[in-house]
């Protein structure tokens, strides 16, 4: 019996060895993908992982090596530097570090390994000029996606109260929350015929990108609190899908509530009946561009803030930021939303780069005056466009929103 088991073990091992050996190809091109969370989080990290798989399909010979859940809590034994070195040992030529948590460490390894291309997602080192030539940044113009999300929320709400589940407070999270608010105000006024000042939106920052028991606020509990407080749509700004799950449970108990998840195209699947839609990142096309450029030797440093592909916002071969309607959206609402998206398309800023970000006339959807910050400071006068750089570095939430603009 033992002998037989041993034989089976050996045969199985040999087959697997042969199988893995078979992958080796002459023109293999290896790229690294460093994820801050698990690759199947139905959120931020999964979107990057899926994009990596997309690159493997689109670029002949491309092979991804990935490392998931690189953060002090899940992988205390390793650092970005060690992970990068292991990826280099695997032959990686370009490495995507897919979180602003990695911004500092990416700068460090980029300086240490000047022959490797590093792409830090959501960072600004290539915009500020701190980055060496082999370090570039990519971000999707989610501000437009969030405006669509805000519009969908305003179309659905019956109580006129929205809840926004925010992670921690920084430039990015402030401008995204504010974008939701802008979209919601616009649609509440234009499609619902309401007074936008009657629409309220409360932002609760849980303290991190995902729930850490005992450390962050519990997003499940916070969502319950929103609904208990009269809100009927909760928009998620965190990496995970608690808002949708809770809304699904409430709806099953008979409540009329909805949710809008974030980050990942398939996020609605958790509770389709209450999902109004999801704004998602589609990193694939941008990653293909980078990998091909590096492979062909045409890479040049860049800082890209990529817009949706407005002709077909859910065309995943083209768009950087997508939107899919959820099952909870009525036909009428869907039509209104299409109209809204078409309106946004008229001011499409295109790809914003370090060179054109300060150009006259670059407009990010509804970021037009009159707008004021939470403390009353005027951000833009009537009809004045808020420059994209000012959107990127948004100092406070907007006037009219409820919630903290900075950590207490």
């Amino acid at each position, binding site marked *: 019996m033992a002998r037989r088991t041993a034989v089976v*073990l050996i045969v*199985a*091992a040999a087959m*697997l*060895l042969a199988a*893995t050996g078979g992958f080796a190809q002459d023109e293999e091109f290896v790229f690294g993908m460093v994820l801050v969370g*698990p690759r199947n989080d139905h959120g931020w990290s999964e979107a990057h992982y899926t994009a990596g798989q997309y690159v493997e399909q689109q670029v002949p010979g491309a092979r991804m*090596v*990935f*490392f*998931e*859940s690189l*953060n*002090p*809590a*899940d*992988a*205390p*034994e*390793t*650092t970005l530097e*060690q*992970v990068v*070195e*292991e*990826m280099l*040992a*695997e032959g990686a030529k370009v490495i995507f570090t897919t979180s*602003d*948590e990695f*911004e*500092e460490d990416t700068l*460090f390894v980029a300086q240490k390994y000047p022959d490797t291309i590093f792409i830090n997602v959501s960072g600004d080192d290539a915009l500020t000029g701190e980055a060496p030539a082999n370090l570039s940044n990519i971000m999707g113009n989610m501000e437009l996606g969030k405006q669509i999300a805000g519009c969908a929320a305003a179309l659905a709400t019956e109580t006129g109260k929205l809840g926004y589940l925010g992670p*921690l*407070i*920084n*430039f*990015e*999270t402030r401008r995204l929350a504010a974008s939701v608010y802008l979209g919601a105000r616009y649609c509440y006024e234009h499609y619902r015929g309401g007074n936008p000042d009657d629409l309220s939106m409360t932002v609760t920052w849980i*303290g*991190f990108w995902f729930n*850490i028991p*005992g*450390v962050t606020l519990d997003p499940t509990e916070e969502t319950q609190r929103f609904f208990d407080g009269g809100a009927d749509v909760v928009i998620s700004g965190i990496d995970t899908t608690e808002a949708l799950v809770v809304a699904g449970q409430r709806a099953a108990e008979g409540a009329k509530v909805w949710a809008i998840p974030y980050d990942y195209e398939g996020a609605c699947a958790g509770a389709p009946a209450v999902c109004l839609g999801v704004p998602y990142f589609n990193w694939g096309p941008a990653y293909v561009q980078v990998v091909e450029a590096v492979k062909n030797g045409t890479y040049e440093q860049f800082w890209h803030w990529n817009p949706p592909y407005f002709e077909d916002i859910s065309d995943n071969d083209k768009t950087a930021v997508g939107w899919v309607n959820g099952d909870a959206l009525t036909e009428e609402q869907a039509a209104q939303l299409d109209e809204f998206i078409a309106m946004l398309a008229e001011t499409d800023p295109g790809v914003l780069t370090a060179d054109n970000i300060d150009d006259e006339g670059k407009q990010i959807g509804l970021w037009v005056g009159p707008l004021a910050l939470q403390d009353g400071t005027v951000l833009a006068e009537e009809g004045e466009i808020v420059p994209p750089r000012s959107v990127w570095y948004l100092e406070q939430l907007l006037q009219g929103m409820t919630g903290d603009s*900075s*950590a*207490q």
Partner: protein
Amino acid sequence: MTRSSLLGQRALALGIGMASIAVSLLLTALIILAVGASPLEVFNKVTEGIGLTPTGLDMVRFSGVVNFWIPLMFVCTGLLVTFTAGLWNIGVEGQMMFGAVCATWVAQEVFLPTVVQVPLEMLAAALGGAFWAALTGLLKTRGGVHEIFGGVAMNNLANIFSIYLISGPWGNQGGQATPPFRQETLLLPMSSEFRVSAVALILMAVVFGGIFLALSGTRWGLELKAQGHSQRSALLLGVPVERNVLLAMALCGFMAGLAGSVRVLFTYGNLRPLVSGGIGFLGLLVVLLTGTRALWAPPIAFFFAAILGGSTRLKIALQLDQSLAGVVQGILVLMVILANGVRGRLRGRHPAQAPEPSASLEAEEAAIHG
């Protein structure tokens, strides 16, 4: 007990130990096969990840293991003290974090030559950790709060505090870590190949040696052992139980603070959330396995560091699920505990008079960590 039967027991213990290693290796191999990988390949990648390559020792990778081992050993050293005294210092994570916060404060606010600056940072971390642990100790001796509950609360507090500092006053424009520390505030690697801090390594060895001697050779160590077995009896024998609880906690916090300082001053070069990273809990596991046999702590801790460190290579090379290393670790721990049980059963049937802190704590740990 006669000499020959003692030898027999040694042989028995060794045999059981070997058998449990063999069983856990077999189980691991089966699990690896079940997820569709080759055990041999996994073994190769892990050993490669540790730095053991056919052409010799890869110092860069080996230093990765050592760098994880050093803070783990600081924590284990401290926990040996509290374990001997019968205390469950679950709060060791928070003590690491608070130590790291204190080291960060000095690194950011004090400007002195490196030879003074770095020791000052480490001292601040150690004192900070000791302070944090002493609070838990006071909660126990004065407030009657069990150290497990006090420790959990203090962990959360340290965590929230450090995240507040990072996203607030010490923040880097919304970044998720403080700005990198200045070069002269950091612990430096010995060489670009062997990237291990000599200061941290030597300090760790000295501290472990000192604590080992204190526990085995001093009256204080014997007092801790006595109160660890029976606090009531120790008190009646004249042991200053309450003072020793505070001292043991503070000493453990001191070590945990040092571990935290290594994390910020060497591993990361800045302060980030959850900087303790579960190393404290891993230390508890190591000490749970070694019991009071302190000399076993370094090899067992090194073994854990190696498995975890080697798994980085494993994950990237074979793209296996990230939890595999945890599963392997879990199997090993289970086997050691089982082997202890088997040995106890074979050894004879003395009804256990003073049960050692049992495995139920592990469940506690898992609940907190996971």
